[in-house]
C-alpha cells in the first residue's frame, strides 16, 4: 500500500493566495492521474470546495472530530494524497495540533510523507512566520511559496534578512507562482471551475462552455508555468507517482 501523503497549504496571513495554490495542486495531481482528496478548513463556507466539490470536504481543524476525519482516515482512504487548505491564521495552530497528535513524529519516522506549502506575503511579518513554522518542520518537506498571482512585489524584504530566515530551515525549497492576468483570474473565479476545466472550455459538469479563447490561453500559459515549478521540485516523486504525459498539456 502506498505511503499516505499529506500536503498542507497555509499561511498565517490572509489574502496571499493559499486557495489558489491549493487549486493548482489539485489540478496538477488530476492531470498526473494522482488520486487526491482535499480538505477546506474555511468552515463553514469553503472557497476550495466551490472549485473542487467532488473531492473536497469542509472541516473545522480546531475540532477533534474533524481532526479525526482527516488523520484517522489517512491509511484507509483510497486516494493516498491529501491536500489541506488551511485557512488564514491557522497554520501555526494546525501544525501544533499535528505535533500534539503525534503526526509530526510519524512523518519524521517516515511512515507518512508530509509537505507544507507555506505561502508568503509581501510583508516582513511573513519572515517571522517562517521562523515560527520552522520549529515544526523536522521530517517534513518545506516549500516556501512566493505567490505573485495577486501582484505581490515582496518589496518589504531585504534579501539578506530573507536569506537569514530561509536558511534556518534545512532543505527548505523556494517556489514561485507567477502572476495570472487579472481578467483571466476573475473569469475563472466567476465560472467556479478548476483551472483545468477552464482551459478545456468546460463547465462544472463537463458541459461545453464558452469562455474567451484569450483568457483560456492566459490561464493555460500560467498553469504550465506553475506546473513547471511543481515539476522542478519533483512533486510527483514526492507523492510516489510516475511523471508522464499530462492530460492538461495535450
Amino acid at each position, binding site marked *: 500500500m502506498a505511503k499516505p501523503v499529506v500536503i498542507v497549504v497555509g499561511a498565517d496571513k490572509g489574502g496571499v493566495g493559499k486557495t489558489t495554490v491549493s487549486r493548482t495542486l489539485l489540478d496538477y495531481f488530476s492531470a498526473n492521474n494522482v488520486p487526491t482528496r482535499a480538505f477546506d478548513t474555511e468552515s463553514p463556507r469553503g472557497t476550495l470546495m466551490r472549485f473542487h466539490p467532488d473531492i473536497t470536504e469542509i472541516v473545522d481543524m480546531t475540532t477533534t472530530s474533524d481532526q479525526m476525519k482527516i488523520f484517522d482516515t489517512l491509511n484507509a482512504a483510497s486516494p493516498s494524497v491529501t491536500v489541506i487548505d488551511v485557512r488564514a491564521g491557522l497554520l501555526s495552530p494546525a501544525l501544533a495540533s499535528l505535533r500534539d497528535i503525534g503526526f509530526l513524529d510519524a512523518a519524521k519516522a517516515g511512515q507518512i510523507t508530509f509537505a507544507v506549502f507555506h505561502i508568503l506575503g509581501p510583508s516582513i511579518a511573513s519572515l517571522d512566520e517562517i521562523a515560527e513554522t520552522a520549529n515544526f518542520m523536522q521530517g517534513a518537506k518545506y516549500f516556501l511559496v512566493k505567490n505573485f498571482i495577486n501582484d505581490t512585489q515582496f518589496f518589504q524584504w531585504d534579501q539578506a534578512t530573507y536569506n537569514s530566515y530561509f536558511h534556518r530551515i534545512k532543505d527548505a525549497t523556494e517556489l514561485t507562482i507567477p502572476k495570472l492576468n487579472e481578467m483571466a483570474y476573475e473569469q475563472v473565479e466567476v465560472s467556479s471551475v478548476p483551472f483545468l476545466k477552464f482551459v478545456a472550455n468546460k463547465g462544472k459538469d463537463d458541459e461545453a462552455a464558452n469562455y474567451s479563447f484569450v*483568457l483560456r490561453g*492566459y490561464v493555460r500559459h500560467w498553469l504550465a508555468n506553475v506546473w513547471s515549478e511543481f515539476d522542478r521540485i519533483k512533486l510527483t516523486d514526492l507523492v510516489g507517482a510516475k511523471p508522464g504525459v499530462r492530460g492538461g498539456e495535450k
Partner: protein
Amino acid sequence: MSLTPVYIICSPRPLVGKTLLARLLSEFLLLKNGTVSSFDINLKEPSLLEYLPRITETADVIDTFGKMQLMDRLIVNDGVAKVLDLGFHAFDEFFKMTNEIGFLKEATRRSVAPIILFVADTDRVSARAYPTLREQIPLKALITVDNEYVVRGELPEAMGLGRVLRITALPSFLKTYVDRQTFSFTDYLRNERDQSTELHQWVRKNYTSFRELEFSLLPQRS
C-alpha cells in the same frame, strides 16, 4: 475541411506600407469572396478604417478586454477571411500575446489559417523583430513583403529565406493618387477601360500575387 485565412499585416516600423497592403488585400478578398472582415489596429498611422469603413472595424491590444474582443473573433472558422492591419506600436504586444495564449496552435485545431505578412525594412528594429517572429511562426505561414518603395534594393538575407511577396513601387504621382481616401483599387479595375495603364497593371499584378499566395497556402473550397 476548408480553412478560414487570417492575414496579419505587420511591421515594427511605421510608414512601410502596411495599410496600403491591407487595403489591397481587403479589396481583393472582397472582390473574390464577396465578404471580408478587416481590423484596424492603428492609432498613430494612416488608418484602414478611413479607407474601407464599411468592412473595417477598429480593435486594440492595449488591454485584456481589447485582446478578447479581437482574438475571439479571429479564432472562429466562419469562412470569412480576416485582414489585420497591425500598427507598429502594437507589434510587440500582439505577438507576445499570441505566443502566450497559443494562438497558432489553437488556430490549427480550429481550421483557421493565420498568414503573417511581415513588411520588411532594412533597419535594426525590423532585423530584430523578424527572428522573433520566426521563433513562433512556421516559415510556411510567415511571408516577407518586399515593398520596393521601402526596401529599395536587396532584402536583408535572413528575411528572404521563406516566401517573399513583392510589391513594386508606384511612381510618386500614382502613389498620391491611390492614397486618396476615396480611391478604390477594385473600382479602378472596373472603371478604367485602358488596361495598359501602369496602375491597372500594378493592381492586377498584386491581385494575382494574392491569389497565388492563397492557392499555395490554403486548400481551396469546393
